[in-house]
């Protein structure tokens, strides 16, 4: 426990201590300048983004609500999985909400994101409704992938998934970034992978291509300290993931502070879309749950460690404190946000549970482009196939 927490505090100084928040009354009184704590960023071959960030009250409240909804969503998924309404493999992002929320706050819907299997939060933040996510998890036809994918397979506009094979999404992301550049778009691609996936060979292949062709690719390593059950330091010769691009500049970010994430991502987008080439960001974060639903997450770390992270580093608690300190909301209002989130999720769960599974004919669709399907899906009786075609 000590080793992990001391590493974190060495890398990132404590967030949202009162001393770090300097509020400047602006004309509208709705905007504040916040100074990010000193340890929010660490650089590799580049200068850091500004530690001063200007945010509005509305934005802070929105970021807060988004993180709260995201956490409720995962809590609901956890319950549904345990009651066997969700089948398949299921990976929750509880604890890592600030990464998705902060990133989305920094970019536009024309920028692209691609991630691995811990994708529910990203799907939500990219525009997937909580209902469509829950329905997908439960394999309903109203799911965001029409119920055909399940937990690891969610996609939406400029969100390229939801990818189940560790590291496979990274070169795919390089291809997306290349296309953005080719089309002369002023957009970037955020390519997420975990500290475990950082050791896949494909990641380094993608680094090379991205640098070679100066792609607007931002490689984002979500370092939650464990690749499945193996601690980062036991799997990686260099656990300073922001330096692993070698010839690509990097930035380590306190991934438990949504504002630091936002600042880093807007800086990164600006960097890459100005033809300065790719970047590697390391979001230092923490997952409270196991790697997947079948991992209790306590055999390779102590309950005390998890509890400690929850009580000292939690992104939601951190932002709540900021909001309260700034007087942007009262304690009661904040509690109301949480109640609203719970109600929204509960309603979506109830609705999704009542939705039907996809039609059986969907089993055969989307294998090939419509009109070029195999003349016969082999393996079933001809008669049966004819029935399914009706």
């Amino acid at each position, binding site marked *: 426990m000590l080793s992990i927490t001391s590493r974190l505090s060495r890398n990132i100084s404590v967030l949202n201590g009162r001393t770090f928040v300097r509020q400047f009354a602006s004309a509208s009184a709705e905007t504040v300048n916040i100074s990010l704590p000193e340890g929010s960023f660490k650089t590799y071959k580049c200068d850091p983004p500004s530690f001063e960030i200007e945010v509005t009250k509305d934005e802070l409240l929105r970021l807060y609500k988004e993180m709260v909804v995201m956490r409720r969503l995962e809590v609901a998924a956890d319950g549904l999985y345990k009651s066997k309404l969700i089948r398949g493999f299921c990976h929750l992002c509880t604890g890592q909400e600030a990464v998705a929320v902060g990133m989305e706050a920094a970019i536009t819907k024309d920028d692209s994101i691609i991630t691995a299997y811990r994708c529910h939060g990203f799907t939500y933040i990219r525009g997937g409704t909580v209902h469509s996510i829950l329905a997908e998890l439960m394999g309903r036809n109203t799911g965001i992938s029409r119920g055909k994918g399940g937990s690891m397979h969610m996609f939406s506009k400029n969100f390229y998934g939801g990818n189940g094979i560790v590291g496979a999404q990274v070169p795919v992301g390089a291809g997306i970034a290349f296309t953005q550049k080719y089309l002369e778009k002023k957009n970037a691609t955020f390519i997420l992978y975990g500290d475990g996936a950082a050791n*896949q060979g494909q990641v380094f292949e993608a680094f090379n291509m991205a640098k070679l062709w100066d792609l607007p690719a931002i490689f984002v390593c979500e370092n939650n300290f464990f690749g499945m059950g193996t601690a980062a330091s036991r799997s990686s010769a260099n656990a300073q993931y922001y330096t692993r691009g070698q010839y690509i500049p990097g930035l380590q970010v306190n991934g438990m502070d949504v504002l630091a994430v936002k600042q880093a991502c807007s800086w990164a987008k600006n960097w890459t879309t100005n033809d300065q080439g790719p970047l590697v960001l390391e979001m230092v974060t923490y997952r409270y749950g196991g790697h997947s639903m079948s991992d209790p997450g306590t055999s390779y770390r102590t309950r005390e460690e998890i509890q400690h992270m929850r009580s000292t580093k939690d992104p939601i608690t951190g932002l709540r404190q900021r909001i309260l300190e700034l007087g942007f909301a009262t304690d009661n209002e904040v509690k109301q946000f949480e109640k609203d989130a719970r109600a929204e999720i509960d309603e979506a769960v109830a609705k999704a549970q009542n939705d039907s599974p996809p039609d059986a004919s969907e089993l*055969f669709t989307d294998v090939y482009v419509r009109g070029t399907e195999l003349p016969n899906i082999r393996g079933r009786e001809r008669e049966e196939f004819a029935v399914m075609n009706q």
Partner: protein
Amino acid sequence: MRFALLFRDFASNIHSKPLIRNRFIHKAFFHATRTILQTTESPPPAEGFLPGVEQSKFIKSTQEEALKNPELANTGVANGETKRMNMFQAINDAMGIALTTDETAVIFGEDVAFGGVFRCTLGLAEMFGKDRVFNTPLTEQGIVGFGIGMAAMGHTAIAEIQFADYIFPAFDQLVNEAAKYRYRSGGLFNVGGLTVRSPCSAVGHGGHYHSQSPEAYFTHTPGLIVVMPRGPIQAKGLLLASIRNRNPVIFFEPKILYRAAVEEVPVGDYELPLGKAEILKSGKDVTVVGYGSQLYTLERAIQLAEKDIPGLSCELIDLRSLLPWDVDTVANSVNKTGRLVISHEAPQTSGFAAEVATCIMERCFLRLEAPIQRVCGLDTPFPLVFEKFYVPDMTRCYDAIKEVVNY
């Protein structure tokens, strides 16, 4: 860091004074293995969705049944003890024996030091030390390549790929490096000590990436051995044979059977032959061929067909090893029955059943009474919500048996 140091010590020791060190390990851990294996808890109750496993006639639930197997006659365990184990415990037992009897053997893969996601390596790191059972980074291509390097040095490398669906990043290493090492070095090097274990096949709710059966990709590769067991006794004997076989072996373990199949497993050291099929049930009218977990479905289909069609008797053959596979046993059977049904979970087109069908057509053409039937997974990606439609279930197997009978 500690691990890195250990590993460095280990590596330097291999070169300096391997025998002394390894003998020490051998003796110390041999004792430990025996003690620990004997005190391992009995298996948890059988579970899993696969119907028919518990009632299967092929599950040896008494010591007498287990030891009756003629293949065990010359193995030295025929009169020995047995212990109730499920399939992951039998695999664990086999690896414990492999590490005890072969001082060069090591096990590595993602999270194997903690027992692996399916508990197959449970306790082995504690028993044999972290320099012999160790976690790798998440790097499938790296894992297999690393194993190939060890095996080329003459070591016994037992690699785990956490799910067969993740074996594809390592496809190049297996197909281009492992399979061809001996051939392209003119016999100077080989990677005979390499065994890659990987859980495969459906589990009821695995979805796209935790359910596939990729065996046919590898049976298309000369130089590899491909094996798939159907239960604990077989898993132990075939795995030990695979580890000791001097060719690279891919050992697919149907994950549904890890907990669902429980047998009385001989506790001693024994091997079952690779490349040899097993006739599970003799019959005269239809030959039914399968492997792995699909055999339990076929068993139920046969029971139903034999009940519905009076006088019908089907012969059921477990291939056990797919490359090489036992053409003779199947051909002899089909020459007797004149009818063949083959079934596997992987998609039909270019699946292993195609190979069986072709060989049997060549060998038994004039004896065939009906077109050979394949009952396989569909030519679609392995679905999540449609798994029950996709898998070649009992009804479809039953239909195929009826079809060849009524032709």
